[in-house]
């Protein structure tokens, strides 16, 4: 057996993950999206990062 079916399965699972997520998450709205660059946007940084210990 070669790597081909493994790689295709992984890509298929990623596609399935995205499809399931889109079905179960809040609807997307590109018109309410933040500016393309955070730098220079004037907006406070948001988002989640693995180094953030914040739990409150």
């Amino acid at each position, binding site marked *: 057996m070669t790597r081909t079916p493994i790689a295709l399965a992984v890509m298929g699972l990623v596609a399935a*993950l995205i499809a399931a997520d889109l079905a179960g998450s809040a609807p997307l709205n590109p018109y309410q999206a933040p500016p393309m660059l955070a730098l220079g946007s004037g907006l406070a940084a948001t988002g989640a990062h693995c*180094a953030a210990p*914040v*739990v409150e």
Partner: protein
Amino acid sequence: MADTSMDAPRGVFTIGTRGLLIVAALAAVLFVAALAGARYGALLLIGLGFGIALEGLRFGFAGPWRAMILRRDPAGLLAQLVAIALVALAAFPLLASNGEELFGAHAPIGVAMIGGAFVFGAAMQLVMGCGSGTLVNAGSGNVVGAVALPFFALGSFAGAYNLDWWISLGTAPVVVLSGTSGLLATLAGLAAVAALVLWLAPAQARRVPRRLWIAAVAIAGLAILNLVVSGQPWGIVYGLGLWAAKGAQAMGGDLSGSAFWSAPANAERLEQSILTDVTSLTNIGLIGGAFLVSVWRGGLAAKLPRLSPLAWTATVVAGFLLGYSSRLAFGCNVGAFFSGISTGSLHGWAWFAAAFVGAWWGVKLRPKLGLEV
């Protein structure tokens, strides 16, 4: 005379396949940008860049650490240090002058943090894949990486679930090196590590191949772009835990008992699509970029290894530990080591020391678990 009758169709097939790959990648970026917004399309593109650079130029973390431990070959480790230094040169002034818009990978040193980094270092040697490496390996059809990845995600979810308890075991205040003095201290620290590994290396091994120089510059450039576009440094682990947490929630799981997952910022991430989550997008891009390079090169024809049941069990356990330990350590080789040090967090240095000791043990343990075939 060689028979060239098959060459033309094969050549056309290759060009067609490669063209299709580029079109598919760009279509995915445009799809995300149209659906979620330009920033998110850009982050997927950055993730694809990471995957292409890591797989295409064979830049990694677990492999070079193994090479340093076993053969005192410093090339890959030196390339990592160069990439971190390049990011620091841009990140320190950016963070100093745009503290509202951008944030660094800053976290405290603690008992669980150090223990987590140690375990992560050992586990990444067992599966020969770190945070970024496991994603790249899975995308390139490496069966060990593909099996480890879902358990990595489960471990990341579980580690975050109880993170407050682990933090309560003993955690120091966050220490951040900043400004010019902080940048100079960081560069001096990186130079000192580079000097040490060069001193330890045999004379004939004291060189960095051209591809690793190119990779270090490419990875650094992408990491700076990641910071400028998203407002946060490159990370891996949060996204994986989020995928598992969303899965648990979809299956009826109640996450309100977890201080971490019920915190407002994380609860919001659980409600929103992963197509608006920074690390999820770059993770997806990493897998896709590695897949793209593997198909481009014809590397998917490689045979799979035959591993024993013990080796498969070790892969599953190590995959879970990669996720769990990296949550306790406030990041993996990317979020803590690469991004922590390059944005001035002292925990990045503690992570490096603890994980390297763990990696030494992982290298020793790997053959005993049947993982070297």
